């Protein structure tokens, strides 16, 4: 790691002001992606601003029929939360598939979505459930939050505070893991909601994306059979030593069908 100054933010206001005044400062939440990145000297922040002592960023609440999760809530807390398991069990299950237990004991939902790793799991849930990301400045719909590989709609001094997940009628997440990193080679989140069906895919492309053809077909008939003939084009999908774009395209179909079946 390059040397940096460590700052413990006392409040969100403090953190936002610090970010506004220091272009090269970075927030640290759980640090599960950031610290390995720093160790490899792939980033050189001037300061790390730790959000860990801001109590208002933590916690899980049942609100408006859905679930609201504070940005600094750890994966293990979502995985084990009675509220999440009752209201959106697929979300608890997804949290339990992130990283490994020690990573889930530190990693946070806010950190994960703000980082927007193309193979991270949470973006699939945020988009798949049509969640709303609440920041220090505004509310951003899940669909417009993730803008590209490691890119989000967040401004330099804007901080995620909570994520609001509406309750679906049914939802499921299916993940095909990279054998080495255990990130998603393909992860598909399917949710049946009052406003229709959502199919969100992570791992396959540079950024989480929806599959409108599948959503339309599932809206007509919510069954695995309904999407069995929908081929995902492999144009623009990721291709690496672990999985070609073509294989990823195929896996999107398989994982989507399995997720639909798991919703039953």
């Amino acid at each position, binding site marked *: *790691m390059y040397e940096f100054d460590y700052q413990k933010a006392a409040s969100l206001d403090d953190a936002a002001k610090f970010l506004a005044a220091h272009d090269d400062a970075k927030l640290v939440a759980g640090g599960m992606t950031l610290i390995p990145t720093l160790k490899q000297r792939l980033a050189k922040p001037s300061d790390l601003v730790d959000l860990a002592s801001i109590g208002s960023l933590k916690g899980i609440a049942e609100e408006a029929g859905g679930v609201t999760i504070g940005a600094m809530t750890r994966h293990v807390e979502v995985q084990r939360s009675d509220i999440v398991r009752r209201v959106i069990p697929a979300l608890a299950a997804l949290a339990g598939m992130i990283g490994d237990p020690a990573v889930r004991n530190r990693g946070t939902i806010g950190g994960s979505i703000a980082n927007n790793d193309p193979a991270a799991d949470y973006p699939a849930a945020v988009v798949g459930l049509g969640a709303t990301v609440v920041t220090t400045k505004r509310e951003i719909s899940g669909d417009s939050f993730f803008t590209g590989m490691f890119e989000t709609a967040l401004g330099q001094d804007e901080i995620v505070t909570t994520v609001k997940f509406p309750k679906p009628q049914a939802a499921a997440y299916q993940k*095909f893991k990279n*054998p080495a*990193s255990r990130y998603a080679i393909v992860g598909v989140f399917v949710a049946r909601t009052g406003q229709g069906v959502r199919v969100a895919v992570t791992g396959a492309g540079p950024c989480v994306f929806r599959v409108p053809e599948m959503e339309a077909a599932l809206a007509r008939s919510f069954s695995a059979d309904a999407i069995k003939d929908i081929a995902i084009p492999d144009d623009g999908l990721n291709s690496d*030593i*672990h999985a*070609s774009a073509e*294989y990823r395209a195929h896996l999107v179909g398989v994982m989507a069908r399995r997720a639909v079946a798991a919703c039953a």
Partner: protein
Amino acid sequence: MTEIGTPVRRREDYRFLTGQGTYTDDINRPRQLYAYILRSPHANAALRGVDFAAAAKAPGVVAVYTGKDIEADGVGGLPCGWLVHSKDGSPMYEPPHPVLAQGRVRHVGDPVAVVIADSLAQARDAAELIQVDYAVEPAIANAAGALRAGAPQVWPEVPGNICYDWHLGDPAAVEQALAKAARVVKLDLTNNRLVPNAMEPRAAIGDFDRATGEHTLYTTSQNPHVIRLLMGAFVLHLPEAKLRVVAPDVGGGFGSKIYHYAEEAIVTWAAAKLKRPVKWTAERVESFMSDAHGRDHATHVELGLDVDNKFVALKVSTIANMGAYLSTFATCIPTYLYATLLAGTYTTPVIYAETKAVFTHTVPVDAYRGAGRPEATFLLERIVDLAADELGLDPAELRRKNFIPTDAFPYQTPVALQYDSGDYFSTLELATKAADYAGFEARRADAARSGKLRGIGIATYIEACGIAPSAVVGSLGARAGLFEAATVRVHPTGSVTVLTGSHSHGQGHETTFAQLVADGLGVPIEQIDIVHGDSAKIPYGMGTYGSRSLAVGGTAIIKAMDKIVAKGKKIAAHLLEAAEADIEFKDGQFSVAGTDRSKTLGEIALTAYVPHNFPHDELEPGLDETAFYDPKNFTFPSGAYVAEVEIDPDTGTLEIVKFTASDDFGRIVNPMIVAGQVHGGLAQGIGQALLENCVYDHSTGQLLTASYNDYAMPRADDLPSFALSTHATLCTHNPLGVKGCGEAGAIGAPAAISNAIVDALKDYGVRHIEMPATPEKLWRAVHPQNMAAE
């Protein structure tokens, strides 16, 4: 009293379980400095200049050294320990292997400079200030590619990149037999390149004592004396008397910690220059680009069978990737540890093997768990399965038909080895029974009903262990003897210290060797201390690899105990006023045959050190004996493995439903430790078959798998539990009858898994799946319309 054969709990565990192990990186010396090694990011580049002026002035930096400093001080290159000759009799090409690059870098990770500073962070910060002017040139990472006309040349003086072109056997006899064969089965296959990945990264600390002139190297080594010899004699030109090498607790080796590495020489040399200790510890990414890799063969194999389905000839042509330089034992792996095993468990009468060893712009390749024998077993067991498939025979039956009969030992193979003992029928029988091989088709049908493809695969193996008879290996080009040494020191109070030249980095020597001594001398195990890993304490040692510790190191201990008993008998005869020939030794008692007059070992020992009435012209004081043991032959463990797998055709995901292993390791001293060795070997073999792959970008020589994000290590949830059994035929040429067990799992598992996969996919016309059999490969195999895109 007998400790042999019992699962004695490990005596080394307490310190490891409580965090009190002492690994190299746990050691800190007063006034210690830290070294960071700047490595080449390019696979092939001329070094036009290294400007380290800014780095030298950076905070905390004490020194920056480059290849020029190494050259100015006359530091030698890393030597290769085995000379192989080509078919035409010419010696292999041995390129220089400088510890810091001299004018050119030849693989990603090649050391260019070392920065030494008060802290590691300062050294690393300063290394970023070094400006290296690289003239990057085209690189070649793939051995077959390196043989093509016009390929980049790794060494200008080696046209075609061929280190040697070696062969073994009678090519004419093999061609003739193949021409007459009723059937010839052919296959091209690769043995994928692996990174050993011991969990403890390599580390080294150099220290220099100005008062005594003694150099000390603490290092993560499987064989500290070998490092002392190589580094002292060839690299730093230090007298062994003034060079101490300590390999303390070592966190796994699997071959990768046999070799003498540049960093060991750099810290020892720098510590003497700076008169301060210098510590270096690899980051994992450095391990990937500097630890010797394993395997990396491309092979064409042909097996001939007669009308009775007996093997009549085997022909094997292999291209072996050496990397950019020759690591310590690299050259013997694809030759003498490989081709000599191609008879396997079979009576194939004529065998011809040829190996082209090829330089590429990659990390040097050397022995990794099994070393040559996994490669031999893999191709042999694949071609036998393919033959069974082509002939419509049960693979078990075809194997039995060709096994060396149990009454045919000692058995001389056509590829130089003489097997002393074995019973391949029994291990196959045990394994197939335990695996319910006979009931498999019902399970296949069950799986098919739920849409899954199930397959079963057998592999048998033979390995040459107990490395090695010095005369034999010497005649084959080894530049070292491969004996082992031990000292058994009975203290005046009767407790025993054993100094062994073997080295434990997980194998449990402190327990197994203590069992031998408890059994041999009748001393309670608590009173026995096993010491290893320090050239200042141990008389000599060739170290631990090639499943040699018990067969060779253990025998050296037995031989030293024999000398203790012989001396004890002399002392007892004197004390008991009896003839030496009448003294018997049993369970720690020296007694006069046929009487009740006896002395305990403790009494004898006390007298040996308090020799008030010794006849000193006949009897020396002391009870301390050293033996060097050089084995007469290799040992030949063997076994049969059965893998049962289930493939999900929708995704290509594979599950190992059951893995059954039956091994012949000769006599077993500690069955608990032996089972652990098999488990670990199997995990590495399965890792090779399904997960692990070291991948280079062929056009740039960039290492694409340089972290655990890309190199798939076997995890707990990738593996099944294993069903083990053993059947012993004793080794005939060592007193314990032991054969060695460290490598078996890694040797037999890849073929068993691959055979099971091909069996599962047989309805899809699959003849072979290259390792690792990733989900995508398996998915493509069942969706052949997608093959073209690969």
